[in-house]
């Protein structure tokens, strides 16, 4: 018990050291850039400058401050990423179940899955936009496609990881197919499903931001490129960088939280730890 506590607190310590290290590294870079560049904020501003820009009340464009711009555009992008993520999650899970249920579905679907995974997202996005003619829908579609693959393949791997003996046991008890899935296959695949979710949640957000850059209709990606082109304060760019990183990490963390709540195996681990 004591050893466990030491490990836990030391893990916190490691995280702290990491963050401190990053801050120091960043600031060293910032001081250096400040010394050698004419517009250092375009390359690497000080962290306090970025923080100051968050609280700045200076109106930048359309009567909004930098923070207001970031937040309103973040809403548009992240909401679509969220929708896409949910759709991809449900679709990936269902397809995995269907592939497990039927060998034919698996044989037919698997090459398409691989194909989707191999096409670069930047190549796919303009096509989706051309078809849907709507940037919001495109964000959803792209986020869904990106979520789909990790969720589907991980869930399928989970469904296939069930020991033969458990299936034999179900068979000997004359369980029907529904019972085999509900009592054995699905509970076993839940941790795998969550692994897929943890991988794809940040990806869905990144994808959504990338889609924004295709069109000038707002969204985090759009503001990002405008800010980079000096159409508005560069600090919008820096705020977005940090916000995206934070939301990406938070999304993955949230999945971990949900896993502890909903995965039978993890729930058990939590109870034992308590």
């Amino acid at each position: 018990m004591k050893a466990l506590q030491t490990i836990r607190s030391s893990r916190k310590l490691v995280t702290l050291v990491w963050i401190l290290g990053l801050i120091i590294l960043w600031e060293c870079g910032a001081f250096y850039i400040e010394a050698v560049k004419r517009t250092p904020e375009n390359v690497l501003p000080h962290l306090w400058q970025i923080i100051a820009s968050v609280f700045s009340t200076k109106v930048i464009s359309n009567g909004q401050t930098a923070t207001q711009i970031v937040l309103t555009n973040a809403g548009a992008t992240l909401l679509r990423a969220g929708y896409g993520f949910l759709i991809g999650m449900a679709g990936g899970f269902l397809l995995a179940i269907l592939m497990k249920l039927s060998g034919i579905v698996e044989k037919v679907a698997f090459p398409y899955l691989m194909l989707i995974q191999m096409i670069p997202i930047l190549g796919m996005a303009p096509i989706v936009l051309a078809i849907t003619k709507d940037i919001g829908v495109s964000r959803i579609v792209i986020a869904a496609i990106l979520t789909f693959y990790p969720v589907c393949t991980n869930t399928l791997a989970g469904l296939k990881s069930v020991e033969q003996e458990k299936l034999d046991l179900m068979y000997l008890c004359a369980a029907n197919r529904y019972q085999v899935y509900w009592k054995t296959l699905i509970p076993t695949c839940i941790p795998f499903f969550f692994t897929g979710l943890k991988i794809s949640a940040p990806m869905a957000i990144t994808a959504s931001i990338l889609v924004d850059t295709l069109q000038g209709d707002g969204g985090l990606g759009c503001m990002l490129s405008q800010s980079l082109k000096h159409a508005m304060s560069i600090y919008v760019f820096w705020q977005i960088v940090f916000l995206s990183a934070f939301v990406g990490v938070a999304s993955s963390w949230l999945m971990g939280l949900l896993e502890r709540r909903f995965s039978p195996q993890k729930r058990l681990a939590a109870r034992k730890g308590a």
Partner: protein
Amino acid sequence: MNGSQTAIKIDNVGMVYRADNQEVTALTGVSLDIEKGEFISLLGPSGCGKTTLLRIVADLLAPTSGQVLIDGSSPREARLQKKYGMVFQSPVLYEWRTVQKNIELPLELMKLSKEERAERARKMLELVGLTDFAHHYPQQLSGGMQQRVGIARALALRPEILLMDEPFSALDEFTREKLHEDLLRIWGKTNKTVLFVTHNIAEAVFLSDRVCVLSPHPGRLSAVVNIDLPRPRTMELRDTPEFTALVAKVRNSFEGV
């Protein structure tokens, strides 16, 4: 035979596996009649087809020749009538279910009421001596206790036939000997027909009414040795000359291994 009934009739069973255009003959011409309530061991070295035979009896595999009859009907019918309980080499417990919920699993599949499930699980836990561990999780139990849960789960359906595939081979000697005695006690109380797979000669002799010796390449029944040791059997039996003689007899019955 005076009124004894055949519980399992294995009639000239052969099994050929086909994989990658290769044929592996796992069993040829195995015939054996097992009476109701008998304790039978299938003994043999690795790869001689013990698991294969057990799976054929359990309707998990279809033989490529011959047939198996359970009470005169097919293994499939027997399975649908829940006549089988199976214990595997590993405990195969559901790690997210408590001991009690593990035992209740087959009963859930039968759609028994919650009360009846709990009642039956309670009886089974008592039978295997794990009453105090009902609400523990499998990971919190020792290997021997986990295997007891496996036995309790197999018995929960009240099967007529208990199939055990090397259930104790992963356990240490002390635990194994304790479980041998417990298994015999449980068997004495419940009157199941037991088909017990092992590669341990002393284990087979200690437990069984008859030891069926299988030889490999191809798997076949090379001898059936009657174990006429008195019951109830206890640990001390292992030190008697009669026991040692039977172990030697079984060992000598192996053909060219």
